[in-house]
């Protein structure tokens, strides 16, 4: 079932990407073409097939709980968007009144 314009807007909102009406209309047609391609998957019977999430079937490694990283706050904050760091904190719009 093709995506409606309303669905496209809803997905963009979930992805936190601002989208104009003209952009939504343009991307709607492209997404529907892509989902037609993706829809080819439904032709195959995959009952009983074990999903493959990863190529190597690895389990996550464990490590000793020891300190390895040193504090790099200043280094990392040096690449923050200009004017958005104050007293070692990242500034964002107020979220709690």
């Amino acid at each position, binding site marked *: 079932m093709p*995506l409606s314009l309303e*669905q*496209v807007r809803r*997905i*963009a909102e*979930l*992805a*936190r*990407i*601002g*989208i104009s009406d003209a952009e939504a209309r343009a*991307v709607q047609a*492209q*997404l529907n*073409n*892509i*989902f*037609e*391609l*993706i*829809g*080819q*998957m*439904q032709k*195959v019977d*995959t009952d009983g*097939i*074990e*999903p*493959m*999430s*990863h*190529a*190597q079937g*690895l389990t*996550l*490694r464990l*490590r000793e709980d020891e300190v390895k990283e040193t504090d*790099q706050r200043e*280094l*990392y*904050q*040096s*690449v*923050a*968007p*200009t004017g*958005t760091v104050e007293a070692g904190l*990242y500034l*964002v*719009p*107020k*979220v709690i009144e």
Partner: protein
Amino acid sequence: MLNASLKELSSALARKKISSAELTRLFLDRISKLNGALNAFITIEEEKSLAQARAADQRIAKGGAQPLAGIPVAHKDIFVTKGWLTTCGSKMLSNFVGPYDAHVIGRFNDAGAVILGKTNMDEFAMGSSSETSFYGPVKNPWDEECVPGGSSGGSAAAIAARMAPAATGTDTGGSIRQPAALSGLSGLKPTYGLVSRYGMVAFASSLDQGGPMAKSAEDLAILLNCMAGFDARDSTSIERAAEDYTRDLDQPLAGLRIGVPKEHFGAGLSSDVGKAVEAALAQFEKLGAKRVSINLPNSALSVPAYYVIAPAEASSNLSRFDGVRYGHRAKEYRDLADMYRKTRAEGFGAEVKRRILIGTYVLSHGYYDAYYLKAQKIRRLIADDFLAAFRQCDVIAGPTSPTVAFKIGAKTADPVQMYLNDIYTIPANLAGLPGMSIPCGFGTGNLPVGLHLVGNYFSEAKMLNVAHQYQRATDWHRRVPAGIES
């Protein structure tokens, strides 16, 4: 020097025929001369490169330096590089100076190699033409009206135009192999987990793999020796003993079983590419290999499954770009949600947005089973096809890409047409298998054709042997684009 192999460069440096500073200067001058037209590099930092070269010269003078000491290598701008702008081809990271080195960059630094520059690429590695870059499209040195392939197109164009002796790339669905094919180079995507992803800007984490791009298989082996190896900072890095990937280069191919998948020679394969690949298979038979017909019956489903899995993982990975701690932030906004929306609307290009939207949708409530889970089941079928095939053959061969390089702009309006470029390369990513492309002739417009090889897990040394023996018998990999005098 511009056409020299890595072995020749290493020997010239060791015998003081040239210094690393002179060699680096030579390639920097090539870049100043040619990059304006080709747009292969995003960032050049002559002083930084030359300082590294002078340090390498001191190491070489002491004797016993490693094979890559003093050799300039270009790096795809997806590898975070300390003190260097690292953009990933995106406006989102257009102000991002790397605060640390990716594992791969660290390995090259430790080996004494010189960072020659950061190469252009499709934005966040999403593309097959290097046209989606915020920094503009890369031109193919074989025909500047054509794309070099992508997403590692800047690395490909840099080597093809002899602006760099070697380069790094990354491959999520074909992004090393397809540009290698379209630009007349050799490129290797290793087994998933062989090269650490630490510091490699994430696109689709279960598929992304870094690898080398160069003029020959022998060069690839030397580069892979440097890049491969366990790294605890990558949770999917594989712990296994180090190998010397050059060890089997000189083995004869007598008795080698080459599997040829019927599904990769059907409709959609352009006849000029098919002809060159057939000639390469005949050449392998002359070298003593045996041709075995195999089937990869679920191959055609790899593109649909990939365009669920890769965007799903991308939508999650790219959620980190919110304008808070680094990267682009919108100038004006009403509140936090508005800041996110505007930052991401401004920072991402159209193709990246499309893929985030696809991924967001397939992972949204109620659609998981129909899309993501279904795609993972198909991924299993595709991997099982390969396992069955490798019971009949040692290596699989076919075309890397259905066509030679296409004109800039020819496929940008139709994403599905662009996606189908990777139909022969995507299956290896889904299965996690090593794949490579080597030049095997020329097609329409006198543009290069690539031969695609897929091997079993961890069989890189064997694949490099197969490619090297082919390159000893042919000279396609030595051809240089017309007008690129060297």
